[in-house]
């Protein structure tokens, strides 16, 4: 693999709550190479968004990075000052949020917001700003006339595209996306995903895409990381995960989709609900809900085991080497 532009090593994030310290992200490590697409998948509360925010250095109290490093182009972001991070933010990496209505300014036009962002990074020339604004809008397939529109005048799908356009303003090398399609209907979702993939191919940026819906990344990502209760439970090449998802949780997620064709089969989903991270079960965090649970699962916590090119945190695949999830 070519040199990684992002290397995350043993990153842990804690939330300080009145009931104690909650480890929202536990010891996560992975690499992203230039132009790669990583999908991070899991239910609500598994820590995937927290992980994304930690990488983007957007955490605020009571959340804090407890340990680990985030090396972006060789620089450890966890150690950098806010000023240094701000210089990098948007220029070298950018973030697309879950809901445009929350992230975009409701009282200024789209064009004004682009101009704001550009001015904040030192671009003052009005003509350049206008030109670049038009460019990014056309990249996402929106007519330049909408530079004069307000956020609420655009449809849901268009708003998300505006967010993506904003993320592209400085041609960053990495774009972090936190469930950008969850507020959209299925058709708009599909189309936005294809747009993102198309842009990625054309412009060559890397993507970390966080979602609870595996189907969204199944066709687009190079690698998939499945998270549960703050820890990585499976990591591997996309096609492999989808064809042979090994961890029982991954299998449960894959089967949560009713199909349209073929016989109508009764699905069960994954029984129970994710654990409270302040009150995690002993041993494997998933064992209370696991169909393939064994006695030792309730006692010891499995490591990430390397199996056939992927990594799985499950005793079913225990090997003597063990390994940590490194690409």
């Amino acid at each position, binding site marked *: 693999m070519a040199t990684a532009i992002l290397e995350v090593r043993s990153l842990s994030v804690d939330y300080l709550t009145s009931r104690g310290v909650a480890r929202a992200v536990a010891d996560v490590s992975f690499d992203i190479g230039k132009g790669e697409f990583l999908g991070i998948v899991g239910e609500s509360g598994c820590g995937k968004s927290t992980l994304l925010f930690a990488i983007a250095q957007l955490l605020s109290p009571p959340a804090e990075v407890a340990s680990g490093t985030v090396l972006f182009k060789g620089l450890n972001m966890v150690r950098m000052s806010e000023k240094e991070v701000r210089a990098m933010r948007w220029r070298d990496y950018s973030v697309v949020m879950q809901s445009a209505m929350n992230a975009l300014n409701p009282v200024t036009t789209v064009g004004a917001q682009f101009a704001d962002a550009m001015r904040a990074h030192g671009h003052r020339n009005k003509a350049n700003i206008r030109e670049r604004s038009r460019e990014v809008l056309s990249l996402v397939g929106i007519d330049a006339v909408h530079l004069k529109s307000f956020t609420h005048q655009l449809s849901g799908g268009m708003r998300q595209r505006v967010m993506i356009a904003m993320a592209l303003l400085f041609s960053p090398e990495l774009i972090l996306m936190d469930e950008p399609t969850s507020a959209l209907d299925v058709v708009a979702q599909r189309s936005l995903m294809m747009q993102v993939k198309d842009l990625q191919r054309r412009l060559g940026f890397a993507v970390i895409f966080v979602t*609870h819906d595996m189907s969204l990344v199944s066709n687009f990502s190079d690698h998939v990381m499945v998270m549960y209760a703050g820890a990585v439970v499976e990591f591997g090449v996309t096609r492999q995960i989808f064809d042979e998802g090994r961890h029982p949780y991954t299998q449960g997620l894959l089967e949560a989709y009713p199909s349209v064709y073929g016989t109508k089969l009764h699905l069960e989903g994954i029984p129970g609900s994710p654990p409270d991270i302040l009150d995690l079960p002993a041993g494997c965090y998933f064992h209370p809900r696991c169909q393939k649970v064994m006695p030792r699962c309730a006692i010891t916590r499995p490591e990430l085991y390397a199996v056939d090119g992927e990594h799985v945190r499950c005793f079913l695949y225990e090997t003597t080497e063990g390994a940590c999830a490194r690409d």
Partner: protein
Amino acid sequence: MAGLILLVVFAFMAIAPGLIAPDNPSAEIFAPGLGPSGAHLLGTTSYGQDIFSQFIWGTRVSLLIALVAGLFATALAVGIGVSAAYLGGLLDGFLSLLTDVFLVIPPFPLVVVIAAYSKNGGTTIIIAVLVVTGWSYGARQLRAQTLSLRNRDFLIAAKLRGERNWRIIASEILPTMTSLIVASFLGAAVYAVLAAAGLQFIGLGNVNTESWGTMLYWAQNNEALEAGSPLWAMAPGIGIALLGAAFALLNYAFDEINNPALRSVRGKHGHRNS
């Protein structure tokens, strides 16, 4: 926290002034114009009254005005603001117009006019006037907040459940707005303290009752600052300032309690990943 302590102190002074300053505040029995001393902690007035006694006894009236006026003003604000927003339509139009009119009227001239026309001033008039001029600000805020809540699913759910409008307002809407209502009350109380003092200072209200405002009135009339009894004017002034500050500090404290975002980050409801 500081606000709470201050308020408790003042409350104590108001409820049991006799314990702290047993002398009758209006009795003009002492030697006039004395400086502070052991017997008279803040000295005496030109009439020979003990300033300290006046200060302590005066707390009662000032606090009373603040709380009562604040309470009524807030009640009015809640009633008008929330109903206008929830019931909508013509009623909303009418009530909003009413609110705006009262908001725009400059309070002091109105207050002076009303008080001047009433025969014998007194605390009641002051409270009434403060309520009439003070409710509209809170009403606007509460109306805006209610409007933002109006189409929330849980209110539609309440309506479909069969709840009557007044019940929805009382049990569904108001409980979600407690912090705003409390803030409104505290704001009205601050306004009441300052405005009441101002009114009494210019001589409206019963100048024979003991309150901080009247102390200022008499002090001013007797040129206390020049005559060498500055404490006569300063004591009530500081008292007023501290009471106002107490309410303001309580306001901040409530904000922090009810909005954890001010002290820590928390996902708002609607955000799937918490």
